[in-house]
């Protein structure tokens, strides 16, 4: 991976390492301060494993008070701090810096309250996304946003990245399902935004913090709303003779007033790869395959499913299968969720991109990706959250071949630029982190970025909290931007992705 400029390392901080360790050991239990090389090595990267850097030291606070004291100490002594949740982020948001204190929130792992009366759950930030649903499912409730890494990713990390999932069109992303947070600012101020009510008045700091990628504050408690599980959930598997047909089908389903819980499209390459990998029963000869899921009452699901079926037929669908049981529905999804490992079989390495595009531009963007694939002579497979316009091309390459890596990087940046060009966004759900930092100038001009930097400066004037992430250093626009997976292995190869 090509090098990326990070904030200047402060030698004075490096040289006072022992002093800093001893100071922090006075603030928190010394057992929770990790400084030996073997102890801090596991924290050198998140799921964007191509970038590695061991921090100055790792601290594992146990209370909000400790977080506050650590931040206050670091702020007063101009020491950089990088917060970290479960470390499953795909954009390098928790990549340490050589002169930073890595604030690992792993000990904040308890669910604090199940409040059915107000239909919410209060949890510490390192509780996993799935654990929230698991905690309330015996009463038939669930937490709606479901990033595919939900088995491992933390709810605090979800807030920091504003994570989505496959149900975002109908149920929104984290920001639409979050009621309150407790947060510690860089100067040590502990505060709460929101609570157990909707739309706290005044400036919406809850909304500002959500998706701020750990640059504005450290989240120490999260309150999310929970929903009653729908009566029935059904999915159908539809094959199309062309991407255009599948794209038209999506547009018409929405134009006719159906809002599916989830709607996914895979191109032929990915359909075949995932089917070979997981034997999901996909229509492998179709040029595009779509999974459409509806939830609600029996009547509602049936009505929408019939409508979708008719629309698919009008758009030349070549096959259509509706799930008869929940097991079958989950099998439909299993293939889709195994897209990462399935691609790992096809090529030594692959990179996963994460752009958002208007739904109607799918065919155009995929045609461009096909053209670029020929130009760079690298195969690509595409997955698309058609409901919410989130596109995930997987570019296959060989990292041992420097030329192949270089071409892959250029290919990826070209795709994201095209996403922006057709009215989309650089990142739908993986975050900017360091991965897409240099592409921010594609989406924003100087005024836009300066305004965001001024907000950062208002809350963290010394730029000590997670510096070097999201915003380009010196606003240099280079050609970076992708998730790099070496040898078909992510940092956490068993976690389903995107």
């Amino acid at each position, binding site marked *: 991976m090509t090098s990326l400029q990070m904030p200047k390392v402060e030698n004075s901080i490096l040289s006072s390492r022992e002093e800093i360790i001893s100071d922090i050991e006075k603030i928190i239990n010394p057992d929770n301060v990790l400084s030996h090389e073997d102890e801090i090595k596991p924290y050198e990267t998140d799921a964007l494993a191509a970038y590695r850097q061991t921090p100055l030291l790792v601290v594992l606070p146990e209370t909000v008070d400790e977080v506050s004291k650590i931040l206050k100490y670091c702020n007063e002594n101009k020491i950089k701090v990088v917060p970290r949740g479960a470390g499953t982020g795909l954009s390098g948001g928790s990549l340490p810096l050589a002169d930073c204190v890595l604030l690992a929130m792993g000990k904040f792992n308890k669910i604090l309250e199940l409040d059915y009366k107000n239909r919410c759950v209060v949890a510490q930030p390192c509780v996993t996304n799935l654990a929230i649903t698991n905690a309330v499912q015996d009463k038939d409730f669930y937490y709606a946003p479901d990033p595919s890494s939900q088995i491992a990713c933390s709810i605090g990390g979800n807030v920091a990245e504003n994570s989505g999932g496959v149900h975002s069109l109908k149920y*929104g992303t984290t920001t639409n399902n979050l009621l309150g947070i407790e947060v510690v600012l860089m100067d040590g101020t502990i505060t709460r935004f929101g609570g157990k009510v909707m739309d706290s008045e005044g400036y919406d700091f809850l909304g500002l913090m959500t998706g701020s990628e750990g640059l504005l504050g450290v989240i120490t408690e999260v309150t999310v709303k929970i929903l009653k599980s729908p009566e029935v959930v059904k999915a159908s598997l539809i094959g199309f003779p062309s991407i255009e047909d599948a794209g038209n089908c999506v547009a018409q389903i929405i134009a006719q007033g159906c809002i599916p819980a989830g709607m996914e499209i895979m191109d032929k390459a990915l359909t075949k790869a995932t089917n070979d990998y997981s034997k999901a029963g996909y229509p492998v000869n179709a040029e595009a395959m779509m999974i459409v899921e509806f939830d609600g009452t029996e009547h509602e699901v049936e009505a929408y499913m019939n409508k979708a079926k008719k629309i698919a037929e009008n758009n030349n669908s070549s096959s259509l299968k509706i799930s008869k049981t929940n097991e079958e529905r989950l099998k439909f999804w299993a293939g889709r969720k195994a897209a990462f490992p399935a691609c790992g079989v096809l090529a030594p390495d692959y990179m996963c991109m994460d752009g958002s595009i208007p739904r109607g531009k799918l065919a155009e963007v995929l045609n461009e990706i096909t053209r670029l694939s020929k130009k760079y002579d690298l195969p690509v497979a595409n997955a698309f959250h058609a409901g919410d*316009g989130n596109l995930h091309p997987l570019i296959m390459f060989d990292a041992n071949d420097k030329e192949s890596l270089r071409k892959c990087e250029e290919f990826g940046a070209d795709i994201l630029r095209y996403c922006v060009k057709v009215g989309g966004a650089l*990142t739908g759900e993986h975050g*900017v982190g360091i991965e897409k930092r240099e592409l921010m100038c594609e989406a924003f001009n100087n005024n*836009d970025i*300066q*305004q*965001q930097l001024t907000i950062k400066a208002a809350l963290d004037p010394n730029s000590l909290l997670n510096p070097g992430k*999201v915003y380009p250093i010196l606003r240099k626009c280079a050609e970076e931007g992708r998730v790099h997976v070496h040898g078909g292995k992510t940092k956490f190869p068993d976690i389903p992705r995107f």
Partner: protein
Amino acid sequence: MSMEEKQNSQTFQDFNQSIFKPETKEEISEIIKNCYKKNIPLEINGLQSKKRIGRNFQSEKTLDLSGYSGIIEYKPEELYIKVKSGTPIKKIISELDKNNQQLAFEPNDFGFLFSGNSNEGSIGGVIACNFAGPRRFKSGSARDHLLGFQGVNGKGEIIKSGGTVVKNVTGYDLCKLLSGSFGTLTVLTELSIKVLPKPETNKTLIVNNPHLKKALEYFDITLSSSIDPSGAVFYPEYYRKNFTFNDLTQEGAIIGVRVEGPSNSVDHRIEKLCAELDILNNEFSILNQEQSNIFWEKTRQLQVFTSLKGNLLRVVIPVSETFEVIQKLKNYEINYFLDWGGSLIWLQIEEINTKMLKEIKNIIQAATGYLTVIKIEEDMKATIDIFTVNPIKYKISEKIKKSFDPKRILNPGKMYSGI
């Protein structure tokens, strides 16, 4: 005269007027740039439907956005509409109607309250105030529907954030921050708003004559049910006269629960809800689509407060606290109705003084909620807090205000004194 000098001279001439009525965003930017240079505070107005909400403040000039209106782009299949901020909500709703789509957050209409007639205001105003109607608990608020914006900050710089797609995590989510900021951070110019298909049909289950405690029990069951309601409101007996429908024959307080979707699903869910609530045939009525639509329009438009003489407070608390809070509030001369399944209390008080307001605010804050003064005697406005804020949040608000509007020229003092 150079080109630049010509432009400056032009602006200077225009600058003598007390009301600016720009038609382009470049003009808006130019006006604010000038005000920034000359330290001139501006009052930002759309269609003035919510002008009376918020604090009174001194402003030398007014930026009137009513002429900055129009639909820039409407893509029904992409589920968004891009409009200029002065565009009337009415116009947007009628445009969406043509494609059977809607603004799912049902913005409140404060016209009946303040002037006796509908005045929906402009989209810019609706976003700037972030008041959502009955469907809030299901579909989100105005802030959840703002996909992207362009605006002008307090230095006159045109800035943007977000886009037109629902999934976008590129940079800080300024759409959220600006929603509900009452024009104090940025003058919104272009807004991309998420739109959604209208449900095929809807019906409303009216439960007759519940007392408050029973009503809250019914809400608890309803909102914890898989019937997926999209409205849950409780009107005490004194508001009952506002709801005369053929199918409502009984007197007394009412609960209304709205169910939307395909017609057979709606029937099935209402049937299911009746069973879950365990109510007898003579205890409920069902409003068909036509009556149901009227019922929820009246609720969204706060019609029970038409030309209200007294004061109106908007209280939001966790629903678990509603019963106790109402009991405490009964020490004052109040009328109220509940929306959002019991979490939103619209509180009508004939006469109020500073001390009373403070006491009420304490009750609400103790219940971890917040209170916004919507309508109060004008002469009281100088001495009371319209919004609820704690010292830490005030301090942060001050910093954020400064980052957008360093000279405090955009609606200064509209939300908080000194901000």
